[in-house]
């Protein structure tokens, strides 16, 4: 499934942040999203995930193909690691959570409550969720926050395996994961300040 973005413009809080953004993400490839803080990387990922409408432009191939991981992991502290993962597996209609536990070395923690995990362990659990979605296009927003070197390697391996199975990934990160993929610097697409619709434009 190839994700194609054509001439996309997006807004945050009523202000355009990026415009004229075009790229394609073919199967088996990763795309690393770079750009200074506040440029709109999170907004871009949320828009691609379908959580907010784009201002202009087209997004093709995204519908029902995307697994999205935001800054927060969507974990319930009073559920165990297994219960948290099984829930998301059931929501996405997959059954087997064992590969996800293996990939992020969560087997030993599987009966612990998510609330008792360390920040890095929680993050690993959040990333393991991507594996149980069974969706081909991963979208990750700063996935390596609070991960140690070892865990970063685990994550990079998981992404590589995912790409090897014909999946693709769009990752907003500033560290080098050693993945086979291009870097998309969104900085040059920074939108010029302007009104987002005729209403505000009527005054300016």
């Amino acid at each position, binding site marked *: 499934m190839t994700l194609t973005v054509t001439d996309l413009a997006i807004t945050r809080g009523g202000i355009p942040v990026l415009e004229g953004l075009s790229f394609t993400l073919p199967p088996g490839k990763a795309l690393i999203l770079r750009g200074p803080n506040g440029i709109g990387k999170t907004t871009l990922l*949320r828009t691609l*995930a*379908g*959580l*907010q*409408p784009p201002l202009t432009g087209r997004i093709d191939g995204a519908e*029902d193909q*995307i*697994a*999205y991981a*935001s*800054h*927060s*992991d*969507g*974990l*319930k502290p*009073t*559920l165990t690691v297994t*219960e948290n993962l*099984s*829930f*998301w597996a*059931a*929501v*996405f*209609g997959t059954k087997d959570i064992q590969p996800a536990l293996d990939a992020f070395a969560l087997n030993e923690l599987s009966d612990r409550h998510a609330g008792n995990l360390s920040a890095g362990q929680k993050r690993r659990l959040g990333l393991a*969720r991507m594996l149980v979605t069974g969706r081909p296009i991963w979208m990750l927003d700063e996935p390596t926050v609070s991960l140690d070197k070892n865990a970063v390697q685990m994550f990079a391996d998981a992404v590589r395996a995912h790409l090897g199975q014909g999946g693709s990934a769009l990752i907003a990160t500033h560290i080098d994961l050693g993945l086979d993929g291009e870097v998309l610097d969104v900085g040059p697409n920074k939108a010029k300040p302007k009104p987002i619709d005729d209403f505000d434009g009527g005054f300016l």
Partner: protein
Amino acid sequence: MIALLLRDLKLAFRAGGGFGLGLAFFLIVTVLVPFSVGPQSSLLSTIAPGVLWLGALLACLLSLDRLLALDWEDGSLDLLATAPLPLEAVVTIKALAHWLTTGLPLVLAAPFLGVLLNLPAPGFAWLVISLLIGTPAMSVIGTFGAALTVGLKRGGLLLSLLVLPLYVPTLIFGAEVARRGATGMETQTPLLMLAGITAATVALLPFASAAVLRINLR
């Protein structure tokens, strides 16, 4: 969908899930009523159906601000919105889970609290029936209110302000059934109206709830 329901039930029953808080609140309100109006049993038995309905309604209201806010805070709501489940189903399941953990226990506890307030004997069955039919509407309407206020800090008070006027028809017909039942009057008309309101809200309001949730997630 069943997974979401089971998860919500599990969360409610685990530590800090808040199960039983509404029930305890219902009990306390009922106990406080005789302290405020006096212990004459004739007076208490007159006002018992209405007081129990109001108590159940307030107990229902109590847990609404956690209904979606917790999933909002930990990011689950974003992830659920990108999951294969339609948001309409998500809010319906959430309302169902709220009813099972809050509404249904209130229905079951109401007759025991009725004893405390000298509810006349014929009133018990009608109280339970009216609450059983009315509480699902309260959960569904409450979910709509929770969806409206989900992104707001200090949304709890606003939630009450928005939801309570919407509870008026349910309260009027529900309490009317209980009151008429307690005095041996005919209950068919208000009962049918109550059932109609519940059926309509359960069928239609989740669409509005999902729509406002989508707006709030933007």
